[in-house]
């Protein structure tokens, strides 16, 4: 059993750096959860897939699932509260300090680099989450089938503008057929 305070603090740290929404912290979350043995190797991909089947931000959902897995319902509450708390505090601070903040030149020039660096981090998250985290050889049936489903989902979203729920359902069915 993981301690509730450890879950709370680790997810609070993750929440603090989750610029650009939850996708940028997926790789970080995996490293933290596995190094503290809250999850077994390979379990993370499954958990995030479960998180993807629920509404709401994927990182918050994943935090809830990891907390639940590590320490039951108390763990789920601790991890979720931890990842949400920095957002709450920072937004209260921003809302109370000034709304005009975003016209300031210094803020604009720091957002200039921040957006770029977060783009790179999310790209890393996608690659890491998708293909780099397991140490098995790259050209397996697993990788090829995952690539096929990923390509199909991309076409479904971009070309046919399908709703994410449809994409998740269809890829689940495709998984049953392919794996």
């Amino acid at each position, binding site marked *: 059993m993981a301690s509730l305070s450890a879950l709370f603090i680790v997810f609070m740290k993750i929440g603090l750096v989750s610029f650009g929404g939850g996708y940028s912290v997926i790789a970080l979350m995996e490293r933290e959860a596995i190094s503290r043995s809250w999850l077994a190797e390979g379990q993370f991909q499954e958990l995030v897939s479960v998180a993807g089947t629920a509404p709401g931000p994927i990182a918050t959902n994943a935090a*809830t699932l990891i907390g639940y897995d590590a320490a039951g319902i108390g763990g789920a509450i601790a991890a979720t509260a931890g990842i949400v708390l920095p957002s709450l505090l920072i937004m209260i601070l921003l809302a109370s300090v000034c709304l005009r903040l975003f016209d300031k030149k210094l803020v604009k020039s720091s957002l200039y680099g921040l957006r*770029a660096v977060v783009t790179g981090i*999310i790209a890393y998250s996608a690659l890491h989450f998708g293909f780099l985290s397991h140490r098995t050889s790259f050209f397996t049936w697993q990788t090829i089938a995952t690539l096929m489903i990923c390509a199909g989902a991309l076409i479904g979203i971009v070309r046919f503008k399908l709703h994410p729920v449809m994409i998740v359902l269809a890829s689940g069915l495709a998984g049953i057929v392919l794996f």
Partner: protein
Amino acid sequence: MVRMREKVVLFYRLFSVFFRIGPSTFGGGYAMIPIMEKEIIVKRGWLTPEEMGNAISIAGSAPGGVGINAAAFIGYRVAGMPGAVAAVAGMTMPTFIIVCLLSLFYSLFAHQAKLAAALKGIHGAVIALIFIAVFKMAKTALFDRTTKLVAAAALGLLSFTSVNQLAVIIGGIGIGMIAVAVKEKLGIRARTEKESPPRQAQALVYPEYYI
């Protein structure tokens, strides 16, 4: 006493409005922005369209999901700190309950081969959703050589070294600020945002990088 009761009603209203918006955010926060506008601006009149635009743009730049951030901001503007807590609790609770139920369901059927295969398929779809987020973000964030280099450097550093993610973020912000300052010293016009076509300026249009 009357004012106290009014306040409690307001907290409850904030909670319930965001409780209803929360589960509609399937596949990321940007999906709920139109729903939020309808509830907050049109139905409740809590914010003007301009304030809402500010709220969303600040929410998209702070750490965390844009939905939860916007809820905190709006809750604070409407009813102070307890309002922010009520709004965020409302936003988080429905998905929290759904995820806990899913987890229970998953642990009951974890040994089923079909469920494991379905999850492997969904893994592929989640990768696609993250790639879409990358493209959307790249479209607004990477518009000159500096931003492209910073993004590539972040990807490279994280892939091939064990450098801390926070250090990468701080480095990116620092390089961006230095680049803007140097360009201004050299007399080059420094853009810090992608220029949007003028027709977009009329309506409430949000950049596409919100996730």
